């Protein structure tokens, strides 16, 4: 019985590879786009313009306050009503990028706020332009604080990409769902799906932990 199921599972490996490819593509594209947009938003949020900061803050609250599944449905079913035709893949990328950008914005903003004002004042006194101040003084120091949570955020992003299976994209989770209709062994099928995610996410979790430990060691805090 188990043997037959194994054979059937091995038969569906091209599907599994396609699913893994889809998961990686979704995560990678939205990771890059989300990081770029998130950094821009984070810098804007701390730029001192009250109105801009408020608007970004409101948007982040709206995104943080609603389930990702509902966001996907909103984008996939409602954007077409505004005349934007989009397929499931584009909708998934938009939803994931938006989510990543919001979280990364807050991480970057927290990092920038952690840089002592004396540093900025010193840069001002040295006659650096705003761009130079950001690039050479503030961001390098902010990155040290932001890096561990940023890597953690990437793990969340990869995991959240599983939710786009709800609009019919054949990612790793969806493949599990399809296979389990033919091979009625949910424990085995989704254990394999889980291993697929684990292989991608666990190294990132370890990296985040290591970065965090290095950070607190660099700041002279004692690890208990």
């Amino acid at each position, binding site marked *: 019985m188990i043997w037959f199921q194994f054979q059937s599972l091995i038969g569906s490996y091209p599907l599994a590879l396609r699913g893994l490819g889809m998961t990686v593509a979704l995560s990678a594209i939205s990771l890059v786009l989300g990081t770029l947009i998130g950094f821009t938003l984070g810098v804007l949020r701390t730029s001192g313009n009250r109105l801009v900061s408020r608007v970004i803050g409101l948007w982040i*609250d*709206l995104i*943080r*306050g*609603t*389930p*990702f*599944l*509902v*966001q996907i*449905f*909103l984008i996939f*079913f*409602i954007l077409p*009503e*505004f005349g934007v035709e989009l397929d499931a893949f584009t909708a998934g990328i938009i939803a994931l990028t938006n989510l990543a950008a919001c*979280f990364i914005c*807050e*991480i970057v903003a*927290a990092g920038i706020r952690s840089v002592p004002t004396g540093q900025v004042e010193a840069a001002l006194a040295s006659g650096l332009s705003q761009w130079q101040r950001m690039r050479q003084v503030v961001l390098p120091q902010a990155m040290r604080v932001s890096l561990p*949570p940023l890597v*953690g955020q990437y*793990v969340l992003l*990869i*995991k*959240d*990409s*599983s*939710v786009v*299976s*709800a609009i019919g994209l054949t990612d*790793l*989770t969806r493949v*599990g*769902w399809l296979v*389990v209709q033919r091979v*009625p*062994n*949910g*424990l085995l*099928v*989704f*254990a394999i*799906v*889980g291993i697929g*995610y*684990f292989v991608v*996410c*666990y190294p990132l*979790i370890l990296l985040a932990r290591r970065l965090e430990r290095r950070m607190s060691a660099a700041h002279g805090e*004692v690890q*208990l």
Partner: protein
Amino acid sequence: MLENFSFRTIIEYLPLLGEGFVATLWLSIVSFAGALAVGIILCAMNLQHSQVLKLPAKMYIDAIRATPLLAQLYFLYFGLPRLGMVLPELFVGILALSLNSGAYIAEIIRAGILSISRGQVEAGVASGMTYAQRMRLVILPQAIRVTIPPLLGQAIVLVKDSALLSLISVSELTRAGQLLASDRFMPAEGFITTAACYLLLYYGLKSLAVLSARWLGVRPIGSRI
């Protein structure tokens, strides 16, 4: 565009949406209670010196953190019948949410306990307290204070995660929105109303977290919501 946004349809579906809202609320409360129980047990195992208890807890926490909730949910939904346990979808959903959030809560409690400075523990030892006394009288009263805001943050995550239960056809808020959207071909009405209901819960819990942080004199919750 949304110029024919039909408030009338929303009012027509208000009983269904209301039921969904209440369902999401109470299944989140039950799951959070379950997650607290799972988290406390895992954390207690994780803080032991013997690897027999520590290793399984660590492996469990890592496994949960490195895989998506949806895969865990399907694992239970399609896997439990295989073990001869045919449970209603609602039970499976609550179980999945409790087991998932429990792993994160274990880490929150652990961070709270480890945030108590070494000197406090040593002072307890020097005063001749037993391990249980130190835990009960010195560590836990202080640890609970710092864990309450992040626990409320985890509650926010749990409420949002509960939307995934609609995918195994548990009737809750997202499911109600989906029904409205598909019955009347009105996705805007269905999903915007659903989103508004979740925002209500989010702002409620968020202000509770901020207020509790102020009352307890600890730092407010971080970015992991």
